[in-house]
């Protein structure tokens, strides 16, 4: 938990990965381009002394990930968002199965999301059921721009995608995280166009659609859709590290999000290992809205809003009881490993509930 002027803030990192981009796993030049592009984002928005080498970045492993997330209690829990990219990486870049290595070892600390791709047809629907049987999914991450043979992407409002969304409803998988980030490929189309979220969200009012990276560079389209669809949420991954070296921009982006979506529909995520919560959580929580933005937008980045964005909103979507978690973490394996028992024991409100 983050100690914010004596107030505790429970942090659920809504967007983490355990990936493998080692040369041996790359089967298409796109795989090398992809990790290099990620690395540019990493170095651009990471303080110089916290930057990794490209070798560390290709594969960091489960042990290091646990240390980065939990050693200093920067995060209390994290949600795995898989990215398959199996046309680029032999064993996949960051699949549900790869993430399950850690998620099943520390189920109290991780939420494990699955994934689907409507181009897999019937077999994909069966696979989603199997994933759900194995891991009891509450969410999926989808990557609409992923290449597959001749196809250069798909849309969430495709008929085929609707079949998958119906399957999610049936299986109780309520949270659909869609990656909507910078345009790289395919070439002439904008595969991360956010317009498909609109129809999907209004057609499936019982599902929640979390647009990762708040649609950047389509923040405008995203906010406009989210303002009209109450089941659309914004994931802060990519926007969050602006807090560190573009504080004025961070203030503007956050003000827009709070104005259009309100404080209940914005979720923190680090996109680990692109950025590391061990410094990012602090950068975001210590950031301030500029006086001009507070006046113009009439929004606040105050304790109550921070608690929601950093943890409570994700807890709501994933049925996480934060007080119960605090009790559990007084003696779980992670707290024992890093000597955090006292950190969680010192929480007065939770103790009063005993």
């Amino acid at each position, binding site marked *: 938990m983050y100690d914010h002027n004596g107030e505790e803030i429970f942090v659920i990192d809504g967007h983490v990965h355990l990936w493998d981009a080692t040369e041996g796993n790359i089967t298409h030049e796109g795989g090398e*381009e992809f990790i290099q*592009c990620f690395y*540019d*984002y990493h*170095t*651009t*928005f990471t303080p110089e002394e916290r930057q990794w080498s490209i070798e560390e970045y290709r594969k960091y492993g489960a042990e290091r990930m646990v240390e980065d997330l939990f050693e200093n209690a920067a995060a209390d829990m994290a949600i795995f968002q898989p990215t398959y990219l199996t046309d680029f990486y032999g064993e996949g870049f960051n699949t549900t199965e790869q993430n399950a290595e850690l998620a099943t070892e520390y189920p109290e600390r991780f939420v494990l999301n699955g994934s689907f791709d409507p181009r897999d047809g019937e077999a994909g629907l069966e696979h989603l059921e199997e994933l759900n049987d194995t891991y009891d999914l509450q969410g999926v991450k989808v990557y609409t721009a992923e290449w597959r043979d001749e196809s*250069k992407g798909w849309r969430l409002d495709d008929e085929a995608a609707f079949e998958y969304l119906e399957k999610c409803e049936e299986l109780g998988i309520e949270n659909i995280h869609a990656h909507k980030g*910078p*345009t*790289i*490929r*395919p*070439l*002439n*189309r*904008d595969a991360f166009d956010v317009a498909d979220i609109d129809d999907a969200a209004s057609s499936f009012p019982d599902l929640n659609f979390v647009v990762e990276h708040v649609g*950047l*560079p*389509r*923040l*405008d389209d995203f*906010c*406009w859709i989210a303002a009209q669809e109450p089941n659309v949420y914004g994931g802060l991954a990519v*926007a969050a590290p*602006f807090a560190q*070296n*573009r504080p004025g*921009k961070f203030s*503007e*982006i956050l003000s*827009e999000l709070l*104005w*259009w979506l309100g404080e209940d529909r914005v979720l923190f995520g680090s996109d680990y290992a692109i950025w590391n919560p061990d410094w990012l959580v602090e950068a975001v929580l210590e950031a301030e809205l500029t006086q001009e933005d507070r006046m113009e937008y009439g929004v606040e980045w105050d304790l109550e809003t921070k608690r929601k964005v950093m943890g409570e909103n994700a807890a709501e979507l994933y049925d996480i009881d934060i007080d119960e978690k605090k009790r559990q973490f007084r003696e779980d394996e992670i707290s024992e490993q890093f000597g955090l028992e006292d950190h969680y024991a010192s929480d007065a409100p939770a103790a009063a509930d005993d």
Partner: protein
Amino acid sequence: MTGPPSDGLTREAVRDRLDRVTDPELDRSIVALEYIDGIELDAGTVTVHLTLPTAWCSPAFAWMMAADSRTEVEELPAVERARIYLHEHMHEIEINRGVNAGRSFPEAFPDAEDTVDAVRAELDRKARTARQYDAVEALLEAGLESETIVSLRPRDLERIDGDDRLSIYLADRAIAVSVSAEPIDRYLEKARETGLVDAETDPLFLTPEGEPIDPDEFELVHRRGRLAQVNMSSQGGICDGLRESRERRLEVAND
């Protein structure tokens, strides 16, 4: 005083022409963004070297900037031919070959399914929306009411004091309000380019979708203009950052 060379061609003239080319995602001039690395003149042939902030910049956007550069420079009467060389881009070979041979985007990229027209139209729409915000802000500051602003037409504008002020005539030309011309000209340039404000009697300002603005929706439309600006400048922040980190990396490599 010595005049320009007899063919009238200078680097400055080429640069001024390139200043009309924008990064379509940021709606800022590629000259102001410092994407131009060099301009070479050789008789009637002009060679322009360009580097974008990142090698991963969308191929469609990179194509637009390179193709627009060629078109603009070739508008100069003294230029017979412009060659554009994009550097440090993952698709520089396809783009340089395609643009300099006058091919279309799908001819240059067998992977592409269509031209870049739809992407360009979408980015133009956003640029218009963002520019409208500044124009409307100027009018609000000059004291105009929202009902008045949504009812303005191009014929209500009149230029005074040379180029930098405009008069806006209200109440059957009984009242004139003077405002800075710059934000309104900048908006009108994009609105006219996209064919939305054509006749003198067309509504001057529009929703992002290109419809007249209902007075009740004025505030919301105005907020959407601000949002379009924040989106562009945020992306500008990402591009700046990516360029800085690439420059740092090149410095280290050259040390």
